[in-house]
């Protein structure tokens, strides 16, 4: 697919897409399961993400994001993949686990967040390198970009931050997460979910690289 080389995609939409993807990693409680069963989650993801990157329409079998697996089946699968296992779950959702030095990754997360006036704080639900936290940070950066749409120079600061955050983090480890869920024969719902996020992140990586130019990431 042709990825725009200029800032043509709506930052607001992209921000929303990140917020939406972060929401899909919630533990499947009753309400969340309902959103899966009644296709709301699948429809919303398809609508929002394909609106930004139309190629995703064909790349992903969106029907698999709807399943009638009951709540407990989904919970057990979530816990098997992401929560618990010998020496940890087979597919941790914490990015630092996939990269060289976990503590170093965490430090960089906190530096990123702090630089932009944020913290995961004392009461955070997840660690700073958790996929939810990272996606929400992208959601925030895109939101900031959108807030400065009238001032491209200012907006560009936030675009560059997106570029670095994706290249150094999400774009690096989410594909590994994707490999892991495949190796561990995840249920179709989670296979598709992670595949969707991976594809989206990789498209985003190209987009923000196009906008800001690649930099040496190491």
């Amino acid at each position, binding site marked *: 697919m042709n990825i725009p080389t200029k800032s043509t995609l709506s930052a607001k939409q992209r921000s929303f897409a990140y917020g939406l993807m972060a929401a899909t990693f*919630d533990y499947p409680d009753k309400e969340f399961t309902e959103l899966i069963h009644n296709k709301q989650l699948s429809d919303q993801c398809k609508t*929002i993400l394909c609106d930004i990157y139309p190629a995703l329409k064909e790349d992903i079998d969106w029907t698999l994001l709807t399943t009638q697996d009951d709540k*407990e089946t989904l919970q057990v699968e979530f816990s098997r993949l992401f929560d618990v296992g010998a020496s940890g779950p087979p597919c941790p959702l914490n990015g630092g686990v996939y990269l060289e030095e976990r503590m170093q990754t965490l430090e960089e997360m906190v530096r990123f967040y702090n630089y932009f006036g944020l913290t995961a704080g004392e*009461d955070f639900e997840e660690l700073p390198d958790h996929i939810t936290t990272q996606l929400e940070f992208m959601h925030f950066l895109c939101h900031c970009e959108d807030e400065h749409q009238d001032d491209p120079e200012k907006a560009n600061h936030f675009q*560059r931050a997106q570029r670095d955050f994706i290249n150094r983090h999400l774009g690096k480890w989410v594909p590994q997460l994707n490999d892991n869920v495949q190796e561990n024969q995840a249920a179709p719902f989670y296979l598709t979910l992670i595949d969707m996020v991976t594809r989206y992140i990789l498209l985003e990586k190209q987009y923000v690289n196009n906008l800001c130019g690649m930099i040496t990431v190491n």
Partner: protein
Amino acid sequence: MSNNKSPKLSRRKFIIGAAAGTTAVGLGLVSLSSCTNKPTWQELPKILGKTIQYDDFSDIYREIWKWDKVVKGTHTRANCISACSWDVYVKDGIAWREEQNAIYEPPRPDVPDMNPRGCQKGACYTSLQLSEARVTHPLKRVGERGGGGWKRISWDEALTEIADGLIDAAVDQGTESIIYDHGTTNAGYGPETAGDFRFASAMKTTTIDSWSGVGDMPMGACQTWGMYNCEGTSDDWFRSDYIVIWVGNPVYTRIPEVHNMHEARYKGAKLVVVAPDLSPSTVHADMWLNIKPETDAALGLACAQVMIEENLIKKDYILEQTDLPFLIRKDTQKFLRQSDLQADGVDNALYFWDEKTTKAVLAPGCEGDGDDGRSLDLGNYKPALSGNFQVKLADGKTVECYTVYDKLVKQLNSEYRPDQAAAITGLNPNLIRRFAREMAAAPRAMIFASWGACKHYHSDLFQRAMILLMSLTGNQGYPGGGVRVAAWWGLDGIDAMMADIGLTAMDQIKLIPKAIRGLTPRDFEDIYTTVSETEANTPLMPFLYVHAGYKEMWDQEHLQDSALPHNIAHYMRESIDNGWVKIHPAEGVQPKAFIFTGCNPLRRWPSSQIARDVFWPKLDLVVSVNFRMSTSSLYADYFLPIAAYYEKVGIKYGQSYVHYLICSDKATEPLGESKSDWECFGLLSKYVQNRAKERNIGPVEGFKGQTHDLTTVYDHHTENGYYNPEEPDDPIKLMDKVFENSPSVAANSGREALDMGAVRIIGPARPSLIYQNFSDYDPEDTHWPHRDFVEKKVAWPTLTGRQQFFIDHPWYIDAGEDMPVHKDPPHFNSKFPLRMNGGHNRWSIHAIWRDHKLLLRLQRGVPALFMNPKDCDPRDIKDGDTVRVHNNNGEFEAMVKVAPATAPGEVIIYHAWEPYQFKNWKGQQEPVEAPWKALHLAGGYGQIHYRMYYGSPGHAPRGAPVDVEKVSSLLEEKA
């Protein structure tokens, strides 16, 4: 990213929200601003817009990294046999790194200071507590046990269901059918442990006494001294002139302490290692005795023979401090007793021959001396060490008596001359002589024998021989001298850990007359025994035998001591019938529920496949309380996530090595939904009480068949509401009580102690269940054990009141162990040619650190065992190959490290790999039958008895007979 309190609900809006373009909402991240009017997340971009300049990621590294706070922390339940204070650095709610504190003052200028203290495990705990093995939500099993199916549930659901399960067990089979095990990560001195103790006590559960169960009970010390605390501060090692590391590897296992041994060499001390392998401690030694495994008693006895024959012994010390001058009847081969001499005489009054009066006289200090056996002061007596003596009995008969010393000498001269010992130990006789002479000549000699010296079948005999050497040379009780294993600091206020201390008012009144005269070590031992019997404490090995399916294995012929006339089943029966060993729940009562914290039974117990296949199916409820997923937790029904060490306050158990008590402050909030142990167990009691009320549960059968009211469990746990474990400061309230009542340490409150991190010991404390060192503490000196006995002539808590080498208990006589001897273990003639040994290692203490990536990088990264090339070559085994280790009992596979430092015939696999790290989850314990000594079930004799944390059969995994065969080569693996 706003002040919204519920990120989850906010997130949902993205899915429910109609379309892109919906205003962004607040999520997990929050504004960093510390101004009073915090901007909301939505306002933040505008504020940032004015200030943010971001070119590339290097910008984020330009900001100075500032810590939010630095607190004093430690590793409270790691059971690392040490205690070190660390500065823990915190930012943004995360503990990032720890740095060793250097806050310890030496007690005197001529010994090394203790700065800094720590080990590589402690140095990476920040990363361990964030590792992916951490579990942060309560979990419930779905599907079969061990099947890997889990789902998160709320604390409320978990506690309700567990409480119901515990109540069901109590209604069905009584509260003793609920088994509680705090296992090998053991106990701290504060709220990190008090919660589970209080829960177990309030519930009247069976409590597994794992001390000896994990093989940490120095039974030879119990048999000889009536106690096993025998250590001081590690700077006292520096004062030794001759340090013998004997069954131990302190370079691995005493990392913060071992420098004292090495520094002692700079002032002329000699360091000797007795070990089959060229262990990492050996590389620092001046002399290495590469002894054949499990022949240590023979070496000790040969040294004793040399010392006696060459008159290198300290006679005055021996006469006062040992039973060697005591009289033995030649006809019965038992002590001469008052009941022999007088019709109304007692059995526990014993005699020596007084050379002045030429009469057998009642030995002062023995149990039945008529003065409560208080003092060793010989007054005008001059005991004979040797000779044949005629003694007239009550029935008019005259019998010939000789001394324990004579019995010893006869035995040594006939069986343990150096050339005879050489045939057993594989050591050159001249080397044995040299070793004995050097040890005897040293002004101060000590033997460092670690917990590993408790894990062989005949460890007690090793220890009796070692203590004999330290007695013959007059070293026990002096600085830089004696046998050293371990000891703990006393802390009077530690009683606060329990809701009550166990002694009834009547018991306490009975103690008053004794207390007025001053309680003796023997009085304290009586108190501990009484306290122990107020709760359902049961030692692990007998528990496994009776309840967990181990009887079939341990009754097998090849695991028996051939010197004994009966199978272990016979001794077990007799011991239970005599009330010597305590079995809870009683035979015939089914264990129904198992709750464990800080331990990992399916890794640690011998042949843990038996526990998994026989014990587990008996249980209706298995609950793991832990901060990480262990093998045992993977087989649990519920998992309750516990705060990690830096996420709660606590008092590290007081290892006596350091002149401080180490406390751990709370650096960060518990991760995810985890809770402190104090809160978790408080809640468990609360839910049991509430559910019992809601379900109208009447009295159930409790401890020893007494009734127990489950509707008061929480009241008991909290001392009728004095504590409220859900209050964040409640654990500090408990610590306040501990420190307010502990004059032996420098802090007066919990907060003060936490701020200090390392709290100076300033004086002696009274003994407790785990502390009986019997040495006054002088803040301006090093500390060493057993001073009271040699300085104040206090009687030892044994039948004879002395270090006792002759034990005329009938079982000991049957076994040929009435005196220290060398015996081959049951597996001596096994057809399996190799002997598997192990020990703690450099990279982990227990399984907690075993699969930690940072530490795995420093070793092979997978379970590995060490073998000598002489054993590898005939089996075509190359370095890195995978081998199968097997015997008739079990098998496992591991990588081989070919190591000439390993003794031929030996397989060394270090401690605590998780079974899930092995193929098919078959762990290193599968072939380990770990037979144990029937003698350790004995009781009814002076110091030979059981009470909680004292005197019961140990887990004896060392020397397991195995063979090894190659499975695949490293190249094949790679392919």
